[in-house]
């Protein structure tokens, strides 16, 4: 079943990897004691490991190809199972209801700790959906999304510190601040295309973080702001556990609200303008779409969600400092969007849950955790470049016959 040629190829691969990892895996020097240790056993592991993995990968690819060959024959029914479920209201409504019910009873089934990390994951769901508007739908690559998140978090921290404003008052304000900043940033950079936009947004994200770090009089610098109150509930004092549960429900509500809004947006006139903009700017302008306005709205709307989640972040952690808003954070949110499937709401939700919960549950791997994280990111992209759940464009078909007849013909 497995040709000798492939075995030979795998052997070559394993020799290559043994060579590749030789200096870093095998040699370990101590520059002070001036000793060298050769860890030959590592070389064996690398060679053996890469041999096995290359064979497995080959088998996987062969099977995939065979299946792809089959798929071509009956393309009409080969639409992914998930997509079918998502399109059919008959399945979709009960399913989402079940998910919602599960989300609502979650805190009473699982421990406070589980609720807490689920809250974090859900916050990233909202962040991912927000960035999805900018990157996935409007096609503007934003590498500095975390800046808006920081603006939201600091809005609450500072307004609370100086003016003693409460969570609920600041929640919309934080969102609006971030949206305003999105417009402010959007104006100068709208002329830029693709990757130039990416680096400018990256720079912008860094600038915001550096200002927060260095401007002590404004933001208290790197030591951050502590003792930010948790959200109140009509002035009721809450115990620690119920406080966490309460924030959890706030975030669940926000997620539902976000899904609703984003879903409506995508099918609106504006949403279609975004899609058109993503596909072809010039053609889009020729169709009479105001490019500037459309892009600015995408930017500010995306920023708005980040601002909202920022406020919740500050309230949940009760402490903010600039170290929480680094480029890596932006990269992770972007990974959520791309990994989940650009433009697809369900995809982004899956992406966020996987990427945020994975490191928590990978704790068992302890120090190999981030290694696995990076590796999984690469493997997922290589095998599913469209994301876990790729977005299918809404298409309208003129149906003369019933679907059954189409299949038979």
């Amino acid at each position, binding site marked *: 079943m497995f040709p000798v040629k492939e075995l030979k190829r795998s052997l070559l691969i394993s020799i290559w990897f043994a060579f590749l990892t030789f*200096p870093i895996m095998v040699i370990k*020097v101590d520059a002070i004691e001036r000793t060298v240790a050769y860890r030959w056993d590592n070389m064996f592991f690398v060679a053996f490991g890469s041999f096995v993995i290359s064979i497995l990968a080959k088998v996987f690819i062969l099977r995939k190809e065979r299946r792809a060959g089959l798929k071509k024959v009956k393309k009409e029914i080969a639409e992914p199972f998930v997509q079918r479920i998502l399109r059919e209201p008959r399945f979709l409504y009960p399913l989402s209801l079940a998910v919602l019910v599960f989300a609502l009873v979650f805190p009473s089934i699982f421990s406070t700790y589980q609720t807490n990390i689920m809250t974090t994951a859900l916050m990233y769901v909202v962040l991912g959906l927000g960035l999805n508007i900018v*990157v996935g739908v409007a096609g503007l690559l934003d590498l500095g999304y975390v800046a808006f998140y920081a603006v939201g978090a600091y809005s609450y921290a500072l307004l609370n510190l100086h003016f003693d404003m409460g969570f609920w008052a600041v929640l919309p304000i934080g969102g609006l601040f971030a949206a305003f900043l999105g417009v402010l940033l959007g104006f100068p950079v709208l002329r830029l295309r693709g990757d130039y936009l990416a680096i400018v947004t*990256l720079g912008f994200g860094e600038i915001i973080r550096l200002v927060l770090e260095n401007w002590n009089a404004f933001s208290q610098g790197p030591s951050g702001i502590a003792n930010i109150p948790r959200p109140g509930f009509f002035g009721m004092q809450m115990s620690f556990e119920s406080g966490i549960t309460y924030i959890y429900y706030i975030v669940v509500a926000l997620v539902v609200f976000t899904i609703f809004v984003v879903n409506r947006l995508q099918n609106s006139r504006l949403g279609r303008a975004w899609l058109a903009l993503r596909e072809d700017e010039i053609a889009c302008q020729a169709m009479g779409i105001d490019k500037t306005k459309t892009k600015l709205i995408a930017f500010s709307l995306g920023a708005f969600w980040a601002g909202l989640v920022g406020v919740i972040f500050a309230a949940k952690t009760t402490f903010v400092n600039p170290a929480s808003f680094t480029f890596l954070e932006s990269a992770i949110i972007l990974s959520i969007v791309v990994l989940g499937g650009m433009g697809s709401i369900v995809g982004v939700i899956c992406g966020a849950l996987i990427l945020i919960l994975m490191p928590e549950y990978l704790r068992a791997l302890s120090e190999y955790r981030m290694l696995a994280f*990076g590796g999984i990111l690469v493997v997922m992209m290589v095998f599913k470049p469209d994301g876990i759940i790729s977005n299918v464009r809404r298409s309208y078909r003129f149906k003369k016959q019933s679907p059954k007849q189409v299949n038979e013909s």
Partner: protein
Amino acid sequence: MDYFIELFFGGLTRGSIYALIALGYTMVYGIIGLINFAHGEIYMIGAFTSFIVATVLSIYGFPLLAIVVIAGLAAAVWSSAYGFTVEKLAYRPLRKAPRLAPLISAIGMSIFLQNYVLLAQTSDFLPFPELIPEFAFMEPVAHVVGSSDLVILITTTLVMVSLTCLIKFTKIGKAMRATAQDKTMAVLVGINVDRVISATFIIGSALAAIGGLLIASHIGQINFYIGFIAGIKAFTAAVLGGIGSIPGAVLGSLVLGLTESFATGYVSSDYEDVFAFSLLVLILIFKPSGLLGKAETKKV
């Protein structure tokens, strides 16, 4: 005036360092349009390889010149090997994928390589052997331009010149230019595009490795994390100069290095990065494709 000259040379050194890394970014981008986030990690691996080789050789008592040459070669060879492998594993399967998929794959690769070095070696900072000796003839001006500054400047210039020759006059250089202009057309005239892309990664990685060796020797320490910041800065420099353009990457790096140096010297190092990024934004507003980048005209 003395102070100005001091800052100027400081900026020049810094810019040359950025340039060695930025070239790899810009070459890869020019050919396949990918921001290779793992490039900073290739630079780090180059620095680590030269650290390991140089330390081993110095323990075995090799003379300094031999150490420098062998460590440099080893760093270039292994970095190229990593660059080649990363391209094959993480980018080649994604060549027809949506535009952002390779970017995420690159970010994943970057995290993976960082942690790989962290686990296989150590999380501690390590002392990098002084590979560039203090030249006696530099002593009178050492407070302005040190020996390592001199070596960095000379090496960068040499690398720049030979790279330009390679691109301009050799067959593979011609193939690279053709591939960068139009991949489909390049295939039609009989260019093996896969091989050209591999060659680009190999050359870019080798340059980064030389950069790694020089910088590590200049600042005297390395750890697994040095690739990240250097990578971001070099990427900024490449975009500043016009990504895809080789002279642009050099010019952008020098402008960035000088800006940072003068910003620290005359204003405050608190905001050195703010200056760097603000400059980038300003330049891109007035020249949206960077200093030397070609303006994109899109036909419909």
